């Protein structure tokens, strides 16, 4: 799988550098613009979306046809994209966390960095779990339409939820359910595993 990830990295670095810059700008806006966390979540989501761009380029060059002649299974091809998405999400979330801590230390933001990070992880995980089976089933061209809907629902819904909670005088930082920080990531891990299982099954039926 290392070979597949290395290929993806070369493609991202050479063809999609701008996709690495936009999320960073979003995170800077979030950390130093006293944002509610929407931009941070969206920035992390954008990094989790990198595999979709790479999959589009793979389809264009028919890389998958070629990769299947190499010592990779269909499962390797699917799982490598999940790994790439998680690497993107985790690096985005880690960067966002650091920026928020800096912003908080400087007294610019009042957002709870830990909670914000967790929300970003949950949203990113939700996005990957929901969108990948669609992309593996329909390909990026048709899948993109489905994806637009999913991004609008997840990011818009998340942002709206934050705003609503805060306008109701409810501070996210005040949430006192001790199990919540453990429960959410656990749920996401389960969702990702189910999603990967579905994607592998869908991709297994494809013919090249």
């Amino acid at each position: 799988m290392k070979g597949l990830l290395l290929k993806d990295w070369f493609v991202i670095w050479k063809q999609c550098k701008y996709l690495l810059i936009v999320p960073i700008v979003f995170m800077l806006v979030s950390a130093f613009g006293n944002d509610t966390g929407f931009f941070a979540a969206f920035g992390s989501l954008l990094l989790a979306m990198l595999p979709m761009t790479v999959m589009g380029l793979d389809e264009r060059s028919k890389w998958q046809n070629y990769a299947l002649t190499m010592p990779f299974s269909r499962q390797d091809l699917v799982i490598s994209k999940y790994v790439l998405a998680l690497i993107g999400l985790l690096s985005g979330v880690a960067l966002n966390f650091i920026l928020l801590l800096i912003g908080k230390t400087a007294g610019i933001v009042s957002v709870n960095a830990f909670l914000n990070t967790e929300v970003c992880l949950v949203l990113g995980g939700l996005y990957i779990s929901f969108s990948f089976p669609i992309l593996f089933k329909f390909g990026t061209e048709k899948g993109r339409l489905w994806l637009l809907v999913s991004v609008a629902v997840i990011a818009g819904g998340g942002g709206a939820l934050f705003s609503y909670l805060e306008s109701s005088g409810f501070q996210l930082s005040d949430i006192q359910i001790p199990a919540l920080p453990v429960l959410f990531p656990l749920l996401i891990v389960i969702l990702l595993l189910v999603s990967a299982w579905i994607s592998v099954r869908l991709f297994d039926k494809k013919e090249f």
Partner: protein
Amino acid sequence: MNALELKNVSKAYRDFQLGDISFVLPSGCIMGLIGENGAGKSTTIKLILDMVRRDSGEISILGKDNQNDFCRVKEEIGVVLDEAYFPESITAREVNAIMKHTYHHWDESQYFDYLRRFSLPDKKSFKEFSRGMKMKLAIAVALSHHARLLILDEPTSGLDPIVRDEIVDLFYEFTREESHSILISSHIVSDLEKLCDYIAFLHRGKLLFCEEKDRLLEQYGILRCSKSEFQSIPSGAVRGFRDSGYGIEALVERQKIPFGLAVDTPGIEDIIVFMAKQF
């Protein structure tokens, strides 16, 4: 051990059917898969590589079923598809880095030797390569991980004769090793005639024959005669004919022809063209 065995392999699409394909490629041999465009050559190769799932039949590569632990077998197969499907931004040097982490037996020095031999630039992106350069890069990859079997789908199509000749020589070189085998598909019969020990002829999804090339050339002949002479020949001896108005040109089985009639040695192209006309 056979390099490749197909037994009654079938695959049906809505508008095309590949039916009941069986052939054996013995280890150390080169087999050419010939057929017109759309005959089913690429589908056969995709079935062998399990890129397309067979409806029925059995396929074994280097002694193993291609749907069972195929990744390990793929370590020993070098594949060149009809196009070189590398991402457009990748350079030949980056291909080396990727393959180093893909094949256990990747031979970096051999790969760079091939790059030099083919005069391929290692820092130029793939999109800037000509078609010949792209195919040469794919061939360099296929030959640089100590494969025992090469599966080549039209590797020479669209290339100029000089490059084609260079590539055919390279395949020759590969089979100097006794355990090395090649399955190569092409509709450029002259390339295959030069290279192959066996010829498999696919026509409209059916395998019309799979024979040793020399046996084919011994078995068949081209008979040029008058219409009256032609009528005296047993119909079972004729595998295809052409009536030019002035006379008949026919592909015949030498052993079934009455003594005294002059029969010329055919080319593989003659054999397949006449046979295709019959079906």
